[in-house]
């Protein structure tokens, strides 16, 4: 029972991070119909930027903000310079392009920062919390993770639902040409979409790195898990991404805890195929089924 509770709590924390990551993928998919396979590498880069700052004694939260800002800039630059030429072209091109970007960012980070594993601090304790005498399987950092992801989500909901900027971004994503006719600077909105997504990815990177070792490959599992979480909820649906992330986090946590860590990717693959073949638009997509 104790183990089940611990595993569940661990899964929720993990799921929250997957959710943030899936959310980032979803933002980009909505704005440019591209799955950004370089998302994990971008988040890794921003996390390294934060780590370099922390290592010269910059306070954690300043470094955290710096990572977000770096992500924002990185996302914008990548959209403008690299992605813009393939927007609206054959989807295979964008896939290959982002995979290439993944490899380049990976390699460059290794060249610049080295490949050794480095410790990454957490802003709050990573020791289990106790209720009375028994300790429970969640740490203050785990709670912080869930809170941060919830805040990010709430922020995005407010942005998209209640602000003119969000309306412009959504309109650009859904129908660029019509939006232009209505005076929306669609190009800017797409850039902003990538920038926001990369900033959200940067947050996810910081949350994963905290209290763990980082190296240039530390985000690699997220290339697939983030994608699966996003597809699970329907690539188009931010709320779906979040729920997809939580479902995936819990599933993988149970698999790791009760069966074996090595089977986690296989279970993830099973979940992905099931969703793609049975409910291609994801579990929570509101729109009519799209071809996958």
């Amino acid at each position, binding site marked *: 029972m104790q183990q089940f509770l611990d595993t569940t709590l661990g899964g929720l924390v993990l799921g929250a991070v997957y959710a943030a990551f899936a959310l980032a993928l979803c933002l980009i998919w909505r704005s440019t119909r591209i799955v950004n396979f370089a998302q994990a590498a971008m988040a890794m880069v921003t996390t390294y930027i934060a780590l370099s700052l922390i290592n010269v004694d910059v306070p954690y939260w300043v470094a955290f903000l710096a990572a977000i800002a770096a992500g924002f800039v990185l996302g914008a630059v990548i959209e403008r310079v690299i992605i813009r030429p393939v927007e609206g072209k054959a989807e*295979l091109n964008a896939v290959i*392009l982002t*995979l290439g970007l993944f*490899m*380049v960012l990976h*390699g460059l980070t*290794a*060249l610049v920062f080295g490949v050794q594993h480095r410790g990454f601090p957490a802003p709050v304790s990573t020791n289990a919390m106790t209720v009375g005498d028994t300790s429970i399987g969640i740490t203050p950092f785990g709670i912080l993770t869930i809170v941060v992801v919830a805040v990010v989500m709430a922020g995005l909901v407010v942005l998209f639902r209640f602000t003119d900027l969000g309306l412009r971004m959504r309109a650009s994503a859904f129908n660029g040409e019509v939006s232009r006719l209505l005076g929306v600077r669609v190009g800017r909105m797409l850039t902003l979409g990538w920038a926001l997504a990369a900033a959200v990815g940067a947050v996810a990177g910081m949350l994963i790195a905290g209290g763990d070792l980082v190296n240039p490959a530390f985000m690699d*599992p997220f290339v697939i898990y983030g994608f699966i979480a996003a597809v699970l909820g329907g690539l188009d649906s931010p709320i779906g991404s979040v729920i997809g992330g939580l479902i995936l986090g819990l599933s993988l946590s149970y698999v790791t805890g009760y069966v*074996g860590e090595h089977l986690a990717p296989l279970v993830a693959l099973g979940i992905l195929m099931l969703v793609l073949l049975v409910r291609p638009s994801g579990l929570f997509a509101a729109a009519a089924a799209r071809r996958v």
Partner: protein
Amino acid sequence: MKLTERLRSLTRPVRSVPLARHLLVGLIAFLVVAAIIGSSSQYLQTRYAEMAFFAIAAGGLTVLTGLSGQLSLGHGALMAVGAYAATLVLERTGGETLADVFVALLVAIAVCAVVGVIVGVPAARLHGPYIAGATLTLAVAVPRLANQWEFLGGEQGLQVPVPRAAELPVWIQDLVWFFTAAEIDQYSFLAYLGWFLLILAFVALANLSRSRIGRRWRAVRDDDVSAELAGIHLGRARVVAFTVSAMCAGLAGGLMAMNVRLTAPGAFTITLSLTLLAAVVLGGLGSLTGALIGAGVLAFLPHFATDLGESAGLSATQAAEVTPVVYGLVLMLVILLAPAGIVGSLRMFLARSSLGQTKEKTT
């Protein structure tokens, strides 16, 4: 002029049948290759052997992606399946003789054919980013199965027995001696074997792509809706393409196992699948020559780039990172600047200039 015409008429039967023509080219190519391998150092021979299995895998992938328009990032996983299948067979047979080697490779191909169908059926229903994500997951998930069952050797993998030169049939030893004036050893054997199978595989693939099946694949790639209207069973065409491609990956995996002499999950990383894609994209999607060029780059670039990096003052570990950066840049630049790849761009250039020539002639 007369003589050449007579020669042409004599060779017509060979030229008019694609298979015969491809086989002839294959034979010539193998003789050239054998001469090169025979006169190379052991170190180069291992590089050639590596190039051969990369080329087989890339050839299969290029058929899949270039001709039938499906993307697979899971070919590393399929190579793993082939490698484990071949290794398990070699473990049981001892792997001492040439027959053992071929049996192992045939089993690798057969197992991968089955896996190809299993993966191909659902994959045929996916497109674009979805198939990319699904096959990428496959690439991560399959090698981890080695940790599940003890007979697969876990993380540290399985040792692969390799035939010793002395166990090879005498006629092969004599033949090699006759042509290259060098004794065959393990390294040259694997290089000969690899290139022999590579040429065989490419002849088969070239033939296939000229055949009705190949035309169907292209039809499916270019416009699936009209292909379907023309009576082509989309799913079936895609599954066949995936299976053929998987068989190539299986053969490549089997050869890789023999070359590396160890089959372990750590060999089959996401990076392997991505570098295969890089080879195919670099060469030009759908071109076998391109796949060969791409494979050459895969086999030689890492060492070249690492040396370059080290001489530029990077530490050994950093220099090793130059290679993936180059692969990644290749992927990006090809997509942004020359989406047809090396061979495709060259072909377009040639086509344009020959078009120019014919125009000049006619006017």
